[in-house]
């Protein structure tokens, strides 16, 4: 990803290596913390006097994520924004008062445009400057829901493609061809899954299943297999 390196704002960025933007974020003109080499709950960030946004790009279990966000909320008076692509964002926003926004970078977009949520204009303005640094477009939405909209819809399409594979309906390349040339999808579901990462899709489906209790979100065994192979 081509990025614009400078900004007038101060961003504190926390990330884990399994985030797709990890390398890009590390190269930005920001205070960067790799949370795998820094123990997140022991770190003292109180020496940050000036910061516009604290941006969390960790990809960890939902319980740990909530714990981390609560910890950041105690440590900082600055607005916190978290990548909540595979989480129940609506709940996190309710539970953590300092969490002022959410982004959805964990599901790469074929158009480089990402949904985001911002409670207030200060967070929105900060995020828009951050998107400029990243050279991506942001699309403000009304609510992060569970996994925003694009991640949720594409996960269900990909899950169905894996179910179809389980049923021996067709080969992956035929399924990809069918969706690209029959309904003009920009990518076939298997190509898409590769870009997003099977683990991410599985995490989101499991979260949807856990939150809603609806069996429609049951992940395909083949998808589960792919997610566990890597």
């Amino acid at each position, binding site marked *: 990803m081509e990025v614009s390196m400078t900004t007038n704002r101060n961003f504190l960025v926390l990330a884990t290596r399994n985030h797709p933007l990890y390398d890009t974020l590390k190269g930005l003109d920001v205070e960067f913390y790799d949370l795998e080499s820094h123990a997140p709950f022991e770190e003292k960030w109180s020496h940050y006097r000036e910061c516009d946004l604290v941006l969390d790009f960790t990809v960890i279990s939902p319980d740990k994520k909530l714990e981390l966000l609560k910890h950041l909320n105690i440590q900082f008076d600055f607005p916190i924004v978290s990548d909540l692509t595979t989480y129940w964002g609506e709940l996190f926003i309710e539970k953590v008062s300092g969490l002022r926004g959410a982004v959805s970078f964990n599901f790469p977009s074929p158009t480089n445009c990402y949904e985001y949520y911002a409670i207030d204009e200060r967070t929105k303005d900060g995020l828009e400057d951050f998107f400029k640094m990243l050279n991506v477009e942001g699309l403000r939405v009304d609510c992060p829901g569970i996994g*925003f909209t694009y991640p949720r*819809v594409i996960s269900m399409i990909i899950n169905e493609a894996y179910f179809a594979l389980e049923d021996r309906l*067709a080969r992956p390349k035929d399924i990809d061809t*069918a969706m690209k040339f029959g309904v003009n999808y*920009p990518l076939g579901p298997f190509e898409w899954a590769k870009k997003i990462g099977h683990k991410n899709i599985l995490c989101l489906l499991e979260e949807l299943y856990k939150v809603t209790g609806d069996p429609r979100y049951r992940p395909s065994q083949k998808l589960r297999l792919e997610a566990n192979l890597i």
Partner: protein
Amino acid sequence: MTLNSVLVVGAGTMGRGIAQWFAQQSVKVQLLDSNEATVKTAIDSINASWDKLQAKGKFSEAETNKFKESLSACNWENIKPDTDLVIEAIIENLEIKNDVFNKLDGICNSETVFASNTSSIPISSLAKSLPLERRERFLGLHFFNPAPIMKLVEVIKGHWSKEELISDFTTWFTEHKKEVAICNDSPGFIVNRVARNFYGESLRVVNHYDTEKMKEVDNVLKKCGGFRMGPFELMDLIGIDINYSVTESVWNSFYNEPRFAPHQLQKKMVDSGRLGKKTNGGFYDYE
């Protein structure tokens, strides 16, 4: 495999498109419909479409004339028995389709391949009442609307379809610049099954009739997902009733599998008669 002649049965939207595309491939096309006036209207409309394309410089006058010569109307009395391929594109009704295929079996030579453009009826159910030799030369050829433009053909293997038949048609379509997806005979085939949740999940994100939220979902899926149209505007274009009926059909075929369950909002829209663009109102207003 060479295809010199095709009989297209059904002169509705799909039949017209299929007939037009085959004529453009230098294949002699006969177009048949239970209503002779429909065939005439269809041929006039195809000819008008070629004239427009010629005016735009897409085809030369010689090409257009050749296409027009390739396409003719027919009725049950003048079907050419030695036609290489029959493609049925009539109403989605098993009984009516079976009647048509049985009738055609009595007319066409044993070498003629039978195909259906069905999007929801199992190919094997359509072939089962025919003699074994014909069943082996029976397959699904599912085109997408508009057939002359959309590149995909789903080539569907019925229970009795010979492997050689599938590979011959795959090669032929590929040589004629179509993209082929081979699949087994299963409800919705590939596209109508895998695409179900483009609509189904979007309906669950919205959950209620909320125009602002529907606009947001359409916008997100176009801008972030790279889809050409959003699910709600697409359902309005297709017809909410048509989309609901495909969803119900796939859901029923999979023994009410929750992944395919229709959403109550679809049903509400159908019950209220707001079916999309065709009724000047669906998820959005068009008046």
